[in-house]
């Protein structure tokens, strides 16, 4: 049997971002500090995209960079900070002072956002949850009306749930460990909200550490998170999750994250950081060259190999 056609899905990063991410679109990024698609974020900044609605279950630097770059009009999410490294200052400047521009935000909890992605991925208008009840997350409106609906169980238990509206994306980003030329993508380690978040995208822009022969995928199909026919563009971006980690490939670049946290506290500091690492860099390859092989080698993962299982019958 012949392999499905590649149909030109494998493409350079700049082309994928140009083709799939128009100004004004609803863009979902990978959440919860796991396999974050930073290579795409850099390219979105370099292409100076505008008026994005950025969607995620737990943002960190990715959202802060895009806000600093003025790419973002609206946020729908649950958290924006640098985790242990403190507050996200581009976010603060945008919300507190409108610098470089005003940004609207619509907030839910992490679980709430995940269930909203689940609803969108499953083609449903909403999903029920039991968190967020009683909090200002449901009471304080932002740009969506209504933000949620509290419903008493129609089957008579007396329980209440909050119905949260689906969160569809025009484009979902997924950074996976590997895929084949058709875009059948595999991930392992922590999964965050990637299952539902990916399927919430009408289109899927997939970046991977490695493109592998399809037999590698077909020898372990339980690791596949999305089949190729749901993927619209594939970009091979080794170290595409830097400065975050990708399980089995490399560790977090703590020094890089600390440098960003320190410099981004002022607008001038942020601009010099962005000139150095984004606008002064032509693309992902040059970015890796700038980081240097020595630094990348230090980050590379040590082997902690899984066993094998038998798929036979």
């Amino acid at each position, binding site marked *: 049997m012949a392999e499905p056609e590649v149909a030109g899905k494998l493409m350079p990063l700049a082309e994928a971002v140009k083709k799939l991410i128009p100004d004004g679109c609803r863009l979902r990024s990978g959440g919860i500090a796991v396999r974050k698609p930073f290579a795409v974020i850099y390219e979105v900044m370099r292409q100076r995209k505008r008026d994005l609605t950025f969607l995620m279950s737990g943002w960190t630097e990715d959202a802060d960079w895009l806000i600093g770059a003025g790419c973002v009009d609206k946020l729908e999410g649950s*958290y924006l900070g640098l*985790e242990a*490294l403190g507050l996200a200052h581009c976010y603060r400047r945008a919300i*507190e002072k409108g610098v470089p521009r005003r940004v609207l935000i619509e907030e839910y909890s*992490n679980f709430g956002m995940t269930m909203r992605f689940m609803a969108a991925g499953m083609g449903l208008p909403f999903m029920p949850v039991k968190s967020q009840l009683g909090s200002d997350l449901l009471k304080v409106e932002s740009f969506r009306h209504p933000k949620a609906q509290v419903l008493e169980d129609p089957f008579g238990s007396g329980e209440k749930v909050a119905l949260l509206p689906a969160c569809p994306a025009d484009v979902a980003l997924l950074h996976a460990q590997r895929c084949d030329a058709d875009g059948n993508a595999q991930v392992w380690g922590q999964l965050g909200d990637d*299952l539902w978040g990916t399927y919430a995208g009408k289109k899927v822009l997939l970046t991977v550490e490695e493109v592998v022969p399809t037999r590698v995928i077909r020898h372990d199909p339980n690791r596949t998170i999305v089949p190729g026919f749901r993927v619209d563009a594939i970009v091979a971006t080794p170290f595409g999750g830097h400065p975050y980690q990708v399980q089995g490939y490399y560790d*977090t670049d703590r020094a890089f994250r600390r440098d960003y946290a320190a410099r981004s506290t002022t607008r001038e500091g942020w601009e010099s950081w962005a000139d150095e690492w984004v606008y002064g860099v032509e693309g992902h390859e040059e970015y890796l060259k700038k980081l240097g092989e020595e630094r990348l080698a230090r980050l590379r993962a040590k082997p902690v190999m899984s066993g094998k299982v038998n798929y036979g019958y």
Partner: protein
Amino acid sequence: MATEAAGVPAPPYKRTELMAICAAREICDGEIAFIGTGLPMLGGMLAKHTHAPNCIMIFESGVVDARPKRTPLSIGDGCLVPGSVMLCGLTEVFGLLMQPGYVDVGYIGGAQIDKFGNLNTTVIGDYRNPKVRLPGSGGANDIGSLAKRTIIMMKQDRLKFVQKVDYVTTPGYLDGPGGRERAGLPRGGPACVISDMGVYRFDPETKEMFLESFHPGLSVDEIRNNVSWDLAVSPKVRATKPPGKRELQVLRTKCDPEGIFLGT
């Protein structure tokens, strides 16, 4: 921030160390603990290394029974993965383990708290025109809504322990007795607040926070001065039990040898 009582020599530990140790003491052996990064993580690691070897640490990014060999900087940290028993996603951790009630204890932080344990991690000031924009809920609301009990860890002053939080990110007991039930929350609520000044619990009847113990070197009055409501104090109030030698040693050598969260 609290100041040391004049004349009392500085104890041989940091305030952050005492907080992490207090966090560890809240976990019973065999319990399922839902953990974020920072001091709660150190508390979880410490508990597992000392009195609660069978407690299971869960992380929202999708890790069950993490056994990190270094201090994680992020909830997605790669060191949480090797040696865990299950890797999954947010839906499994929040949906299948926490929402139906299988998580015994969850840790959260906050920028503002009121006497009913309601927490704000969203904004200081008006929501649409804030003085300080904070990170927002993340998983905090889910933990505070759905865990069997919640442990709150935060710094303390009159601007943090307030009459009314600017935004209820995570419900404590809301407006008091019956508040959670009226909102439809299935269980839970704050069991304990660990600040850099003392340890607080909640009255089972009134749902109001009261001081259980003050950290060594501080007085009840000093603590009252750092709360903006009329703080209830346990009749059995006492000094917080200082760190044991083994607690401190394990914390410093195994949980955060680089001082990432404990300070250097």
